[in-house]
């Protein structure tokens, strides 16, 4: 995994807002909206001028801040029950506190002992990933998969029909099963994945599950050479970091 160098770049708009509140030593329950809005917007401008890719979420929060600010300028109406109207900041405060809770939880988890950093366990040292990585492989697209699937379905033709009990199979269940299987076996051919006994219903569910996983890019399908079996494996490690820009 790559080391990531982090300057004063924030995990998101809420993170930036929390930072400003801390920096100004402001009571989170009584945020001076116009001050914070001003600072928030000047940060965004600064980030823009540094040519940083600014995620749309930052602008959404800027709009929210301005909206709250405008509401704060309106006179407060007393309702009939004598209760004050909702503080326009309440929802934002709730969001900030919630985010802060999890940010702190994340920091605490960071301090916990972590596998492969603070302690280690035995593992099989056979480098399975290298195996797939060394040889040139060809990525398989959806259309090729559909073709392969049709071949399998066609091949079913003369098999005797076997009625299976209808069970509560679902695509999400197949997804978890498939992932478990792939983690255990590392790579499976398309045929193996569809499994035996071939039952139409199961085939369809399995295929849908495979498509879903490929869409999420959790698994990849590839071929070592033309006409070889199509193989499926869990996608190679990618940097977990770069979100926000996705």
């Amino acid at each position, binding site marked *: 995994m790559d080391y990531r160098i982090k300057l004063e770049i924030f995990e998101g708009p809420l993170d930036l807002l929390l930072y400003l509140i801390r920096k100004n030593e402001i009571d989170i329950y009584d945020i001076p909206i116009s001050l914070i809005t001003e600072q928030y917007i000047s940060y965004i401008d600064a980030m823009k001028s540094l040519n940083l890719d600014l995620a749309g979420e930052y602008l959404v929060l800027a709009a929210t801040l301005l909206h709250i600010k405008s509401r704060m300028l309106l006179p407060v109406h007393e309702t009939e029950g004598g209760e004050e109207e909702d*503080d326009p900041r309440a929802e934002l405060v709730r969001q900030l506190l919630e985010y802060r809770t999890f940010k*702190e939880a994340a920091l605490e988890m960071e301090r916990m*002992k972590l596998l492969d950093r603070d302690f280690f366990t*035995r593992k099989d040292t056979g480098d399975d990933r290298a195996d797939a990585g060394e040889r040139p492989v060809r990525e398989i697209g959806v259309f090729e998969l559909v073709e392969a699937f049709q071949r399998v379905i066609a091949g079913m033709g003369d098999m005797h029909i076997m009625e299976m009990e209808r069970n509560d199979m679902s695509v999400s269940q197949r997804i*978890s099963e498939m992932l478990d299987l792939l983690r255990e076996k590392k790579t499976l051919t398309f045929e193996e994945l569809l499994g035996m006994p071939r039952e139409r219903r199961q085939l369809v569910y399995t295929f849908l599950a495979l498509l879903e996983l490929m869409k999420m890019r959790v698994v990849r399908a590839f071929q070592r050479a033309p006409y070889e079996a199509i193989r499926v494996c869990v996608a190679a490690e990618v940097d977990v*970091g770069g*979100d926000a820009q996705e």
Partner: protein
Amino acid sequence: MKDLKIIIESLVYISETPLSVNKLKELLVDVPEKDIREALAGLADEYARRDGGIFLAEVAGGYQFRTAELSAPWILKLRGGKPATLSQAAMETLAVVAYRQPVLKLDIEQVRGVDVSATLRGLLEKNLVRIVGRKDVPGKPILYGTTKKFLEAFNLRDLSELPTLREIKELEEAESLE
């Protein structure tokens, strides 16, 4: 059973994932569960008392040998790798999943205020997060939860061992503001 402790020690040593009492029961057909648990506790105690390079830890519903913390830099050198790390984004996302599971991607995004597609995919690939099902609402969105590997990686027996959140107390206070 004679030599029970020796056998269990070997089994735990050779296993690549935490070995559960149930699995041991399955392997050691006629041995009562109580004896297995006693042997495990005895072994864990022996390793703890020895205070050496290896410990027997109870994690993720099973037992596993783990190395002493102070050896970490040398093990990394031996394996020629960098230490496992998670970015702050990944850690925050993981925290929301861990405490809020089963949870929708949308819920995580509401807490964090950013898109989490890439982070979530990374966590799925690292096998720290898994799909646990689909919510029964229109569109059947995917629900996420943590895996056994997550417990293993963070040294937890089960989810109840997660540190307590700086409690919902403050969230409640915020609600009284509304």
